[in-house]
């Protein structure tokens, strides 16, 4: 039983780290600001969700699990608001999103 939980938590941690790296690769690779926002949201949703789940499976006290749940709830509530604020500010600051009809990269 313990082994199953261990393996599950390790695979969650590894998958989370994998999505984290994918997110930052997208952050470096994508052509303009608005597309980079999408890469950032990969980190803030699935990346953090998987890492926190992996940690919660390793936790020994219930309080630690509650704190981890609070942590993921805070991240999940604040990250879209921050992303929306960034997009709105960029639009307000006359940053034009590149669309596929003009440029394909």
């Amino acid at each position, binding site marked *: 039983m313990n082994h199953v939980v261990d393996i599950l938590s390790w695979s969650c941690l590894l998958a989370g780290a994998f999505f984290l790296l994918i997110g930052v690769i997208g952050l470096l690779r994508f052509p303009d600001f608005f*597309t980079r926002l*999408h890469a950032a949201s990969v980190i803030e949703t699935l990346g953090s969700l998987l890492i926190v789940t992996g940690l919660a499976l390793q936790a020994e006290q219930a309080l630690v699990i509650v*704190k981890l749940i609070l942590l993921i709830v805070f991240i999940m509530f604040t990250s879209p608001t921050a992303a929306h604020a960034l*997009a*709105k500010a960029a639009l307000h600051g006359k940053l034009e999103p590149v669309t596929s009809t003009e440029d394909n990269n």
Partner: protein
Amino acid sequence: MNKIPHALSLGISLALLWLLLSGHYTVLLLALGLGSVLLVVYLGRRMDVIDHEGHPIHLKFKPTLFYWVWLLKEIIIANIDVSRRILSLRSDISPTVVKVKSSQKTTVGRVIYANSITLTPGTVSMSIDDDLILVHALSAEGAAALDEGKMDRHISMIEEDY
């Protein structure tokens, strides 16, 4: 509008958070906690942010939980799609800007919709103008999926007439 229930629910949730995170149950620390809870509720009332928007306790409980599970599934699917596009060697993105109509009647419902759009990777809501949400999508397929309005209908279900 009666704002007492919202103030009460804010106070209770803050008190629970304090008890949970502090872990020390001496008279001094509990008194300090009570003081901070009262201060925050008082400041919230003064700023006029304690109402059905700041503390939406009127949303239906069960459909909200159901919606969260559904949203989690959507987030995982969208994440895998975006990750595939990031890792593909040739450029596989087609950024699109679309206007999506939201059918929610209340401001809270629209905010939930816009935030859910942003939370799902591949789509970001850029601005809200009345019932039109300006959305930037990473791919034309993502924009088309949003236009079908599945998420929109799900949120209308948890919204109660106010």
